């Protein structure tokens, strides 16, 4: 079994523009996704918007400097994640396909095994 991180990338503006009933519907979809895939799920969370993000980078003098905003400015930003466990990539993709991501999509990455 391998663990995979399913990163949910979505357009934040679309999220911001959505109405209450859309939020409610998507929330319900996540719940039903969780119920349906409980056997594969090892964790997951939604993130606050990139507006709340702080990035830390080393500058040219080697000092760590904090800046406002996400690490990479993109239209579709990381908005949440799931950790799933699956036999192989196809099995992982079959679960990841069910993740509600109406304003974007998901990226599936194997989690490195540390011995």
């Amino acid at each position, binding site marked *: 079994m*391998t663990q995979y991180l399913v990163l949910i990338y979505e357009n934040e503006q679309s999220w911001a523009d959505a109405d209450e009933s859309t939020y409610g519907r998507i929330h319900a979809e996540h719940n039903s996704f969780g119920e349906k895939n409980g056997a594969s799920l090892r964790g997951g969370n939604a993130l606050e918007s990139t507006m709340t993000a702080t990035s830390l980078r080393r500058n040219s003098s080697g000092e760590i400097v904090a800046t406002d905003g996400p690490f990479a400015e993109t239209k579709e930003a990381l908005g949440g994640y799931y950790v799933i466990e699956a*036999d*192989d*990539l*196809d099995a*992982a*993709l079959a679960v990841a396909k069910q993740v509600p991501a109406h304003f974007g999509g998901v990226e599936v990455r*194997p989690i490195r095994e540390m011995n």
Partner: protein
Amino acid sequence: MRITRDFDAAEECVQDAFAKALASWGQQGIPVNPGAWLTTVARRRAIDLGRRHDVAIRSQRLLVTDATMPERDPSSAIEDDRLRLIFTCCHPSLATDTQVALALRMLCGLSTVEVAKAFLVKESAMAARLTRAKKKISIARIPYRVPERSELRTRIDAVLLVIHLLFTTGHTSPVGEELSQVDLVERSLDLARMLHGLLPDDGEVAGLLALILLTDSRRGARISAEGEFLALADQDRSTWHRDSIDEGLALVGEALRRGRPGPFTLMAAIAAVHSSAPHWDETDWGEIVGLYDLLIATWPSPVVALNRAVALSFAEGPGVGLRALDDLGAEPQLSAYPYLAAARANCLVRLDRLEEARDAFAEAAMLTENVVERAYLHSRIEELNDTLGAEPGLGLL
């Protein structure tokens, strides 16, 4: 009877761009502006063809003398292994180029050097790409098995695209002493045949096998005794390979009977119309236009629309064709596409509007980035200059 030469060249590049589009869109989703994307790919493809020509002979030698091709084993276990392997190589989580490279290396048994030559990259670069791919297969655990039935339909598409790309890489090649990389063609045929043997009920698998058989049946007729490229209109049809045609036609019929045809079946059906015509003049262009209509419905693209317009010019006359082409001229996606100008030029020649034809050829020559194509277009301009100079108003036909 030389008017169709550009059409043939255009159609081949279009098929390529189309195949690439299918491959990439299947993986990355349809781009915001598919037409522009197709145009870009077709142009890049034209550049590729020009480059490939330079190394075609070298590649050819290496490909042909390859000794590592695994022996065809009749036992079904081996066949199943190969089928599993092709699904691994053609997994959508691998880039299309990588899928083709892996298929060449793993399924066709080419060495890394040979795969590098086929892609016109350095051996070290290809070795790194193959290593990365194998690493991804291992770390992400891309499975080594035939996908489940629910997934099979979409996964077969990727496999078909890779086989088709192998075929077009081998088949499409600009004018020259060696017109095609026969070995790649035969390997793609072999893979398509194997896939058809294992999935005999799949219409698109039959369609692809038919497309390869029908297109390849003309292999020997595509080049003149003088080594010159011969367009469909100029080929000696008695030299077409009859067995391949018969097999291809039977497969097209079989695929069409399976219901709603996919793009490979439709392309094969278009090839079948040509194969069924005893002579160019007897080509059923109305049928071809109808098939292009279906193809556009399956895969809307201005490039397919361009091919349809050219077919229309033969079905209903160059005036009708020219109007359809001019309608496409309004498509911003096609504005820098040399085959649109070349197709217009051919219609204008047939309408005896030679000065406009010359301008259109000049436009096409300016737009193409392929040296071989440009040389050919310039020769057409020269011909028109001669005609216009010596006997103004006299048509080329």
